[in-house]
């Protein structure tokens, strides 16, 4: 009886120690689910979802505070991927958060710009260069098309320009072939 108890206690202590060590040694930093959701989100950092950036939205989805259909730049496909990851139903994009638009970049009309720096402060990815009372310009390859710089501009000199396909970015279309009409 006593031997059995001792053996059981011994096993419990050894296993407990092993588990305790493992929990310290293999500790997971941060929530891996948030990272996975964040990897699917388009990183536009536009805030259309109602959260200040993609990471906070990922956090909110992971906590169950936000739905998966609040990201217009991610569009249908983003929702589908999120639904896949989280094992939820695919649903259409929530209309109150905006609509899916073709990818655009901001362009500053340099004739009109007064150099107020408001757009520079608004840009979430530091893609606008300029200084006070100097002309500003958008670094197009870095622009995510979030439109956050459009509203603060006091002279309305920022417009969103859709990105045209170049030889590098042009894609073959999905093959579509005419169906024979049933005779």
């Amino acid at each position, binding site marked *: 009886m006593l031997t059995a108890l001792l053996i059981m206690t011994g096993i419990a202590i050894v296993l407990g120690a092993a588990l305790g060590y493992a929990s310290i040694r293999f500790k997971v930093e941060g929530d891996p689910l948030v990272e996975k959701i964040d990897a699917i989100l388009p990183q536009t950092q536009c805030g259309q979802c109602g959260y200040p950036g993609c990471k906070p939205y990922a956090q909110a989805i992971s906590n169950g505070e936000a739905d998966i259909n609040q990201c217009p730049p991610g569009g249908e496909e983003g929702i589908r991927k999120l639904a896949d990851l989280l094992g939820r139903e695919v649903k259409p994009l929530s209309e109150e958060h905006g609509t899916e638009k073709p990818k655009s970049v901001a362009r500053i009309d340099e004739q009109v710009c007064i150099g107020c720096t408001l757009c520079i402060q608004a840009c979430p990815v530091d893609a606008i260069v300029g200084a006070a009372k100097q002309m500003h310009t958008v670094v197009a390859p870095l622009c995510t098309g979030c439109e956050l710089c459009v509203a603060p501009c006091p002279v309305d000199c920022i417009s969103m320009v859709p990105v045209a396909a170049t030889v590098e970015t042009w894609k073959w279309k999905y093959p579509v*072939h005419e169906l024979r009409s049933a005779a």
Partner: protein
Amino acid sequence: MITRLFGFKGGVKPESHKNESSGTPILTAPLPKRLVIPLRQSIRSTARCLVEPGQKVLKGEHIGEGEGGLGTSVHASTSGTVVEIAPYPMAHASGLETLSVVIEPDGEDRWIDHTPLDLRTVSREEALAWLRGCGIVGMGGAGFPTHVKLGGGRGIDTLVINGAECEPWITCDDRLMRERAPEVLSGAMILRELIGAKQVRVGIEDNKPEAIAAMQAAASGLGDAIAVVPVPTLYPAGGEKQLIRVLTGVEIPQGKLGTDFGVQCFNVGTAHAVHRAIRFGEPLVSRVVTLTGNVARPGNYEVLLGTQVVELLELAGPKADTNRYIMGGPMMGTELQSLSVPVTKGTNCVISASPALFPPPPPELPCIRCGACARACPAELQPFELYWFSRAKNFGKAQEYHLFDCIECGSCAFVCPSRIPLVDYYRFAKGEIWARERERLASDQARDRFEFRNFRQEREKEEKAAKLAAKAAETRAKLAESGEAPAQPAEAEDPKKALVAAALARAKQQQAAVTPKNTDGLSADVQAEIADIDARREKLNQQDADKAP
């Protein structure tokens, strides 16, 4: 010399249609009315323009400087005046525009001064830079810069010269080998010297006996190092990996290059261009183009780069029922969106197609899983699997089945009994996968920048707080020095409050130090009056205080 040949799996035998255009010698195309020279002549790189409208240029003059690792120079194809630098449609499936230099020829076709390069007096690097400056790129179609291919060569054993020309209808390499065999082989020997290969093997499909004979005759004087090898006619024997397999038996696995196995491959056209560049110092300004199909005078023409297809077609005379034009061969070529596209370094053939010669494809039927495509695939893939995954947009699975090993040769679609345009699906899937990869890179970059911005804002806030605290501490120290204790040392933790307190203390001190000037040196009368007023005010205050409770 008896050479053992190897085979590759799969392959198809389409009707060759070589005889239409291979019978007549290469003719020099007349000077066109205008030349549109795209600055994008090599793969993934657009040259920087060096000329401006109105400038006079000579034939072979440098008009575009190659940029980046894959850049090569672009030259004026004839002498004349630059009239415009503007985007023009290019020979690409998309029909998109690219920046081009438009030259109006002056009719003299006058060369710029050029001198040959003596390979014995220069280093290998200098010779490669020379080729880059001459704008030499692969002339088989892809347009990969030759100096880059040569530069990667270390420990190369075999140099393969590709004269297979396996696509139906095209005969430009055939005619080039028949008429300019010594020059092609001279180029091959230069390439061999630059890459340090022990032996050279020229692979030519055995449906070109005249070319084989001409090349063998030219090679007989060059010793044992060079061998002209007839290879069986089987499409796509001219694919780089397939030809290397046939000639050397080396099978290049996924993700590896020929150079990893001591083999490098160049097209015969490239060898010819290298010969002109080194022995004469001539940059690449013209090439041989096959005009064939539904035309009155099929044949091969030496065409200046930048000649528009519409002017070129006048030479061959397309027949009335021509309904579309194909650039390249019928298996891998692309339909031209516009006839104003210019001839580039990779243009080998323009086919005029009529419904009789190229009947419209019958409607696509469902896949019956017959496996004919898998037997025909020279890359030993499973085309039907790739088709299902591409069609279902299951791109991850398509990549698992090695979609990117597909060379888009079209053998699978050629044999498909259901006439499924398989290659269209693969191209679509590849494009989507590349686009996704670009998007992923862009979003990773955006994430990094966003996170750095947040970090920077946080850091700026901290730096500001630290600065304030330092200033507060300094002021306190100054006050302590001047013998006055800080007003409220308890609030020292909050630097802002401490600063305010310090400022208040300073103000009080100043107030105490300065006595109002108007009470200095007054007469006795005024002094008495002031005392009287003060007394009255005191009395009123007293009255107020009495009333209040």
